[in-house]
């Protein structure tokens, strides 16, 4: 009985948090008049043609094209990020080497470096190398364990495993890499999944990097395509179409979150990652 106010607060907060998303889905079926006429999210009728139109977009390419572009960035980026972060975290967590403290301080310091400071020199550098308007500036940095957060989280997980595992595997004749792949990696699977999921979501959400590095519409990622559609549509004109595009754009993130939710949250709670 004592907990009723708590439930009340939580339920109201949850409704406030989720209502905009519900409204967004509803609004995709509404006329402009209906959108601004009522706070209730349910549309008067469902006409899925708006989604067909939204899929076609007004940019000359379908959303399918932009999805493929986005995945062409996300897939290599995720593979790169997982491999490099695991190796670096393994090095920090399990080995002693010269200047270890110094490099660890660099790792922590790098996390606090504002992206806005690094992005312009990188733009100039990629420009000199001739890689602007390609996916190389978006994916290649992940090969070098650039996301300090991921490394930090994996280190916490590695430290949670008893060192006897490594010793036993060494006695059985496994080297450094075989110990990692056959003994340690299976134990930290949730953390690896968290890294992959976070990388997916962050890349999906990333706007600044594609905005700066990609110029041609043909190579736009989803977020750039969405922005172009908003700009070319303008306020007060066919708003349901832009809204429908946004709904479509959210589907991959929601799907990945729903599938990976359980492992993913356990990953965050152990690693303390935001």
């Amino acid at each position, binding site marked *: 009985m004592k907990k009723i106010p708590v439930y009340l607060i939580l339920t109201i907060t949850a409704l406030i*948090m989720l209502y905009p998303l519900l409204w967004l889905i509803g609004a995709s079926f509404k006329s402009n008049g209906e959108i601004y006429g009522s*706070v209730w999210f349910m549309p008067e009728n469902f006409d899925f043609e708006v989604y067909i139109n939204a899929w076609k977009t007004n940019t000359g390419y379908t959303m399918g094209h932009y999805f493929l572009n986005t995945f062409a960035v996300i897939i290599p980026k995720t593979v790169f990020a997982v491999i*490099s972060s695991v190796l670096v975290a393994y*090095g920090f967590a399990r080995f002693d*080497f010269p200047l270890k403290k110094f490099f660890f301080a660099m790792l922590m310091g790098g996390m606090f470096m504002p992206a806005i400071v690094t992005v*312009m020199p990188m733009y*100039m*550098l990629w420009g000199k190398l001739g890689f602007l308007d390609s996916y190389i500036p978006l994916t290649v*940095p992940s090969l*070098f364990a650039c996301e300090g957060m991921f490394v930090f989280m994996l280190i916490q997980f590695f430290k949670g495993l008893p060192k006897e595992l490594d010793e036993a595997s060494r006695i059985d004749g496994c080297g450094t890499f075989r110990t990692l792949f056959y003994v340690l990696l299976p134990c930290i699977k949730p953390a690896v999944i968290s890294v992959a999921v976070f990388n997916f979501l962050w890349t999906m959400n990333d706007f600044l990097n594609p905005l700066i590095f990609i110029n041609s519409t043909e190579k736009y990622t989803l977020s750039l395509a969405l922005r172009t559609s908003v700009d070319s549509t303008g306020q007060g004109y066919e708003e349901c179409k832009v809204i429908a595009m946004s709904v479509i754009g959210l589907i991959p993130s929601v799907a990945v979150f729903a599938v990976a939710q359980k492992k993913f949250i356990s990953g965050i709670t152990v690693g303390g990652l935001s």
Partner: protein
Amino acid sequence: MKKIYHNSVGVGKYTGLVLISPFIVGFVVFILYPFVCSFVTGLTNYDNIHQPEFIGFENYRNMFSDSDFRKSVGVTFRYTAFFVPLKIIVSLFTALLLSLEIKGMGIFRTSFYIPSVLGANLAVVIMWQYLFTSDGLVNQFLEIIGLSPISWYGNPEYSIFIIILLRLWEFGSTMIIFLTALRDIPKEYYDAAKVDGCGKVKSFFLITLPLLKNVIFMNVVLQTIAGLQEFNAPYMITEGGPLKSTYTVGMLVYDEMFRYYNAGYANAVSWVLFVLTAVVIFIMFMLSGKLREEMQ
């Protein structure tokens, strides 16, 4: 004396270095190089096409007389000073409620967490833009509860709240960190406090808050860095307006670099932003250190 490296039998002292070598390369190329390059470019007059011309600290001097720059620093700091405490309080309060061992906790946790997963997505930013139009959802609700609608986009007093509310809506990730930290506090502490006659409020201030100190600090630092760099939301939602009331330093840097092609000036401003961020975090470290001494 020679340093001894504690490694397993058969592992040399360089094995670890080899494993972290991607990070060393990445740090030099993607963090150290841009950092130095940004400073050097900031000392030049450069349009990204012609040869840069060295002009010393001219760009930095120009900032003082640039009213846009002064305004954007004010906007950025006011914004950060508003949203960081709000976000921390809301996250901590919700985490406390969720840690009360209630049924359906998982459902609540997920509902609070989803917005922060989607939050930075451009689709959500577009949604947010619609919510605050003159007859959008937010104003419709204000009218229902008997308040007069607000001109969110027209009034420089309110426009920044569109961005603050968006970032506040994404409190889930901060909340999860608090939730984990709360779960790590041994229950015996509270039991002991109860025996000593401590009420719930008192035990929150005497047990919970001191034990969460480090986590709170970490969250404040992370959010402050994010706040001082804010770019996406004002760029997409308000375009910095009205009357530059949401024109953050991040936007100024972007405009100077990619709209006016003043690469030199843009880099100098971004360096100032970096230094300001470092100073703010340093002050936080000092203050929190003092706080720690007082508590002991």
